[in-house]
């Protein structure tokens, strides 16, 4: 097999986005259903294993290259971009924290071979939204364990081939003493407890479930979840989510640009009034892009420096990327609507921004900005400078 360069990957993502993802986006949104066509196309081109190292049969692509894919998919269908991002966040945790274990080495090979889709169950009823604590526990019995989790959300849980689940290390462990376990579809049973008829991001199918599982203790990721969270899960989540939001914002601005161009052509020689609004929103888009790219560059620079990754300063900066990008996407789409005027407000126009606007408003609510800012406020009490 020939290696696919980052540029090839981006070109291929663009092609799949324009030809397959875009065509299904409105139906996925209307019916709040899984973007099956998009994932069939992504699987066929081996996008699910794109970040798995080549030694396990994956594409060996960097986080920045994957972020570009998230951005491209996000342009055409935010739900597709989000599911792809969430899958890659789980992949990042496995490739960085489980590779010493023979079970996980075999799993990574299988993921690459079969293009498995990974889901995640980190939130739990009764923990007050703090994913760094768990109520449910791994209950060991010999070399097997049982686990039951009341999960208010497992996005695309029914479509996942395997799910990573957080839980307390043992029945007598403290709520913050967590591990993450990998459960294959055969290991668990999902009983749906809530639906997903939401304002936006409707294709993520973020249903609630009771998850009941039994599996081998080999399936417990060896490193403590606290470390996986601060070193990989949180920075990767913030950066990949911000990338797909950048895709939503970019497409909204592209629709605004197309609208202004059409206006300008109608009256050659004059600059349409909407062009000034466009200039304003393009500046905001460039600032958002700089924020996201700067964050990706910083993380890739310190990715292997465990000391830096566990510092308060790093956590603050990554949290700020999430807060800034989530605000920016809602502001930019709203401003783009000001550019297109009623043409973007209409659902049946090629300048329509309704879906972008609804999807964008999920950004500040998913891992709520209020919660992130409260965590930052606490860290700033002891942090001395940047």
């Amino acid at each position, binding site marked *: 097999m020939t290696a696919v360069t980052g540029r090839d990957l981006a070109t291929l993502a663009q092609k799949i986005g324009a030809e397959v993802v875009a065509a299904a986006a409105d139906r996925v949104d209307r019916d709040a259903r899984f973007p099956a066509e998009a994932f069939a196309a992504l699987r066929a081109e081996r996008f699910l294993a794109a970040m798995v190292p080549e030694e396990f049969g994956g594409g060996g692509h960097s986080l920045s290259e994957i972020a570009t894919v998230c951005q491209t998919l996000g342009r055409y269908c935010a739900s597709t971009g989000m599911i792809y991002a969430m899958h890659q966040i789980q992949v990042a945790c496995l490739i960085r924290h489980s590779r010493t274990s023979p079970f996980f080495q075999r799993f990574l090979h299988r993921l690459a071979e079969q293009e498995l889709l990974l889901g995640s169950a980190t939130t739990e009823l009764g923990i007050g939204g703090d994913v760094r604590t768990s109520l449910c526990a791994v209950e060991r019995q010999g070399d097997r364990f049982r686990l039951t989790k009341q999960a208010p959300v497992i996005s695309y849980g029914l479509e996942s081939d395997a799910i990573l689940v957080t839980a307390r290390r043992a029945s007598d462990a*403290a709520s913050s003493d967590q591990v993450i376990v990998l459960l294959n579809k055969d290991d668990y049973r999902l009983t749906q407890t809530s639906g997903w008829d939401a304002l936006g991001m409707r294709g993520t199918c973020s249903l609630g479930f009771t998850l009941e599982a039994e599996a081998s203790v080999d399936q417990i990721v060896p490193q403590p979840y606290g470390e996986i969270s601060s070193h990989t899960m949180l920075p990767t989540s913030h950066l990949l989510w911000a990338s797909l939001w950048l895709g939503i914002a970019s497409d909204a601005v592209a629709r605004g640009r197309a609208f202004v161009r059409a206006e300008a052509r109608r009256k050659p020689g004059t600059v349409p009034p909407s062009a000034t609004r466009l200039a304003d929103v393009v500046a905001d888009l460039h600032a958002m892009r700089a924020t996201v790219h700067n964050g990706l560059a910083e993380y890739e620079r310190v990715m292997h420096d465990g000391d830096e990754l566990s*510092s308060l300063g790093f956590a603050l900066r990554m949290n700020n990327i999430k807060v800034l990008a989530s605000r920016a996407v809602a502001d930019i789409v709203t401003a783009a609507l000001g550019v297109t005027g009623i043409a973007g407000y209409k659902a049946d126009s090629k300048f329509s921004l309704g879906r972008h606007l609804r999807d964008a408003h999920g950004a500040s609510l998913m891992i709520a900005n209020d919660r992130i800012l409260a965590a930052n406020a606490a860290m700033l009490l002891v942090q001395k400078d940047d």
Partner: protein
Amino acid sequence: MNDAGQLADGIRTVLREHARLAIDPDGLDDQADLYQAGLTSHASVNLMLALEDRFEIEFPERMLRRGAFSSIAAIRSAIEELTGVDA
């Protein structure tokens, strides 16, 4: 009791009052992992503030790491470094 022992006792007192651990700090070995004992990231900030207050120190930026507060022994060596106490 030597200085190191007194320091560890002082740290245990702060842990008892501010770290909200799942177990009493008296039952903790100096090397025991505080995160496994129930220290959350939120409580770790309160712990840092309380240690700064009790020992009249300021942890510099380079010490604001998960590892620096992961055990009684780690906290003791950070405080010793800042106060110039030779253990």
